[in-house]
């Protein structure tokens, strides 16, 4: 018994709480009385008092609940249960991160690791910089990560629970400046035209280990000579340290993965279609399952069409073949996808035309076997419905959430059910920005920006009722970035209204736990 107890205790850090139903069955089988304990209290008491009883329950679960559950209880992989703490909403006042001598290019990205360390990255004057918030709340001076001699854009950052942080960006790796001077008929100067030719681009990565050491830059993608390639490469970091990077190249989407503590695997062709692959969007869950969605734009003029494509990743098996979802559309669909630990996925995208009836949000569902449903329309029609890219979360139990539109309309689909509206608690002012994430407890976290007043509202979306707790931050931005750590640390980052400052609001954890996110 003791040997088994030691073994079970050793694997406990990855041991999720069993469901209450499973625990009740085990208790009944063992003749134990008492109502099932909440999972968290079960975890907390697993080494205190009634130790033998708890371990018997665990053993019973191992025996009675089936190999899959047993594997998930011990290995912690492919788990359908939360792996950390709920997102804290106790935000401190936003902090200004680092002085910026130049204008910030694009949005700032933020990540939180398992220790509550927050990392923010942004592009400034064609260079990628990063700043880190230590546990005492102080921010480091911005550190330049990219080569100052070339132009770098589109930074992304992700952190795992071990404290490893990965940053990627697109870098111009070559180019030659062409300049020609002109003169008026009298010989007076007429100015110059300039251009850069022979440009090439690549996706570059740097990794910071838990001790704070940055690796040398590493090129992840082949070079491309087209400025249309490698635009906004995707990065997703799983809690356990798995990393996925994606990019578009011509008509195809490529990806590269890195398991925790390992080197990067070779690039993999995820999918391709006619025309040009555009607008890839990558999402990941703590176990490392990922969904990658994009559209292939084919044809020209009136014959141009967009076909949404999606592929899912099982870390153990690799990428499923990409499939087409929905029917080709005339306008850019701005798709998004979400996935859970069992491989159930949801894709959503928009279709729009001049008539209101043509402006709709479409969705499709993929089951764990990779079969996708036909597209359905959600939430009626109208321009406000499709003003933004949809945000999607698929919970471990199969329930799914979509938030979309300039004023954040939400929809929920219970596991095995149909889509329906989800009432959100009203906010003061006019909503115009939204970000959706899922915390380590498996609860979607919605961030909404409003104007008049300018605020950022953060709330956890609970089932079938508006969130009862929320945080309201002063200030708002069009593109906030959200990171939720498994220890409960929450971070929201945005670029200040002067386009020169980075603002980050951090909510410290309300309880300790291990994990990561970003």
């Amino acid at each position: 018994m003791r040997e088994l107890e030691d073994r079970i205790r050793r694997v406990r850090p990855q041991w999720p709480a069993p469901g209450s139903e499973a625990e009740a069955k085990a208790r009944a089988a063992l003749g134990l009385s008492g109502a099932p304990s909440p999972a968290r209290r079960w975890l907390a008491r697993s080494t205190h008092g009634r130790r033998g009883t708890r371990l018997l329950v665990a053993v019973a679960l191992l025996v009675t609940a089936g190999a899959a559950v047993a594997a998930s209880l011990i290995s912690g992989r492919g788990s359908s249960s939360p792996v950390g703490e709920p997102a804290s909403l106790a935000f401190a006042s936003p902090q200004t991160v680092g002085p910026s001598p130049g204008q910030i290019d694009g949005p700032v990205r933020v990540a939180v690791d398992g220790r509550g360390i927050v990392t923010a990255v942004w592009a400034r004057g064609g260079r990628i910089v990063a700043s880190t918030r230590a546990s005492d709340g102080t921010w480091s001076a911005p550190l330049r990560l990219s080569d100052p001699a070339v132009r770098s854009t589109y930074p992304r950052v992700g952190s795992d629970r071990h404290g490893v942080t990965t940053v990627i960006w697109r870098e111009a790796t070559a180019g030659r400046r062409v300049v020609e001077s002109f003169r008026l008929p009298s010989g007076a100067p007429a100015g110059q035209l300039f251009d850069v030719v022979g440009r090439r681009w690549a996706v570059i990565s740097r990794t910071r280990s838990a001790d704070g050491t940055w690796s040398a830059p590493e090129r992840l993608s082949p070079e491309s000579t087209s400025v249309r390639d490698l635009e906004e490469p995707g990065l997703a970091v799983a809690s356990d340290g798995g990393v996925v990077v994606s990019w578009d190249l011509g008509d195809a989407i490529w990806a590269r993965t890195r398991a925790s503590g390992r080197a990067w695997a070779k690039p993999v062709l995820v999918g391709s279609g006619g025309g040009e692959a555009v607008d890839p969007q990558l999402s990941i869950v703590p176990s490392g399952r990922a969904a990658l969605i994009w559209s292939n734009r084919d044809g020209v003029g009136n014959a141009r069409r967009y076909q949404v494509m999606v592929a899912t990743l099982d870390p153990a098996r690799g990428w499923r073949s990409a499939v087409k979802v929905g029917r080709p559309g005339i306008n850019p669909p701005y798709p998004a996808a979400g996935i859970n630990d069992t491989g159930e996925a949801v894709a959503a995208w928009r279709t729009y035309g001049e008539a209101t009836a043509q402006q709709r949000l479409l969705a499709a569902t993929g089951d764990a076997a990779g079969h996708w449903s036909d597209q359905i329309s959600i939430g009626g029609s109208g321009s406000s419905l499709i003003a933004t890219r949809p945000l999607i979360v698929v919970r471990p139990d199969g329930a799914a959430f979509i938030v979309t539109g300039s004023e954040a309309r939400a929809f929920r689909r219970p596991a095995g059910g149909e889509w329906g509206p989800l009432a959100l608690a009203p906010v003061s002012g006019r909503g115009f920005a939204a970000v959706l994430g899922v915390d380590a407890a498996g609860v979607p976290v919605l961030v909404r920006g409003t104007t008049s007043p300018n605020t950022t509202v953060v709330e956890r979306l609970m089932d079938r009722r508006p969130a009862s707790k929320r945080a309201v931050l002063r200030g708002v931005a069009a593109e906030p970035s959200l990171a939720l750590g498994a220890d409960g640390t929450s971070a929201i980052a945005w670029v200040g209204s002067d386009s020169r400052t980075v603002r980050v609001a951090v909510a410290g954890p309300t309880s300790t736990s291990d994990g990561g996110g970003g």
Partner: protein
Amino acid sequence: MSRRKALIPVAAAVLVIASVLGVLAVRGGDGPRGWSAPEAVAGNQLTGEAVSAIAGDGTAVAVWTERVKDQWALMGSDRPLGGDWSAPTPIVGPQHWRVTGLVIAVDERGDAAVSFAYWGRGHAVLLGSYRAARGRWEAAQALAPTTSGFFQPSVALDAKGNATVAWVAGFGMGAPIFASGHSAAGWSDPVFVTRSSSFAAAPALSVGENGRTFVAMPAASGAPGRTHPRLAVFERGAAGAWSRLPDPAAITDGGLGPAIAVDSSGMPTVAWAQNESRGSSLMMRRWTGVNWGPPTVLDRGPRAGFGSLEARASGAGVVLAWARWQTRWTRVSVRAALTDGSGATGGSHALDSFTIPDIRGGATHTSPGPSPTRVLLAGSGHPIVLWDRLVTRTPTFAGELFSSALDAPANRWEPASRITPGPLEGGWPLAIQAGGRGKVATWARLMNPNGGPIEVYASERRSP
């Protein structure tokens, strides 16, 4: 000789004459109503843009851009009346900058001037090139300093072959307008004309036979902060500086930009459309040298209903042609008017009236705007109008080209005659000209209606 025997030679002569006439009728052309089969310019890299103009002797000049790999070139070709397109020759050889914004003018003798821009990374520089009749294109010369955005030039030639290019530099309210000229001494540096008061298109430019040059465009009047839009006309003085004439009109509520033509006495006639409470009017005024003559209403139509408007010198006066909605969205009217040397007109004449597919395409709300019909005009002694009739919108826009020439002795316009053999997908008219020897028309077409290379065509209709 018997009567029968006497009639035989007569009958034979009749048969011969009839045969000759029959042959002549066949040789009159292979296209509709005597127009020849369209002949395409012999180039296989035409892409981007094409322009054309036709000299008084019927020689068509075509200029277009070509792109080979990452290089851009500007090419030209001529087609004499009854002949073939010449082998394309470079006006600008392959070079790095995108060539865009082409405009061209050709005079009666065949002198030609073209203006265009080099464009790179959001900036542009304006250039011009000149060619004397039967000569070679001169090296392109920068006419204006680089600007952010683009230029909108116009070009015209006088009877001596001197060229003028006028342009708006950049885009937006207050964009400056400049002009440059070409003479035997070459191009001149740009001279400031005025500042535009609206998001103006290229300034309307006309050069008289005697070289008097006028520009018309919307411009502002009044103190800073209290300006109001006016229709302004500027004349270039002998020393090259521009002076503003008294404004012929106030611009009310976003009327159509003006057209201007200088008659044989050197006086400009300006035409413009202005919106009113319940419609719009096409107006015209002639400068007497001292002041503007009384305004003349040439036509009335729906509010914001006037579209393409052109004016050219013709005889002692000017000829004008325009298109407007007859019934908004579905029926178009193409009309023309002539003036005499005093500016008096006998009214406008309907050249064509036709139905087009509803251009709203099912949209629930469309702001009022002009018809899509493009009207081109040639004047001098043989006024002729070219326009396109939209035939279908799906799967792509396709139209047919029509023309009507003024039968001067009879003082009436010919019935509209079709030029193109059939609907022209992705096509648009470029130029038309009429002379004693016949008529010539040029047009362009996207080879792939969904984008891609273009072709330039010419067709002619010889006079009997």
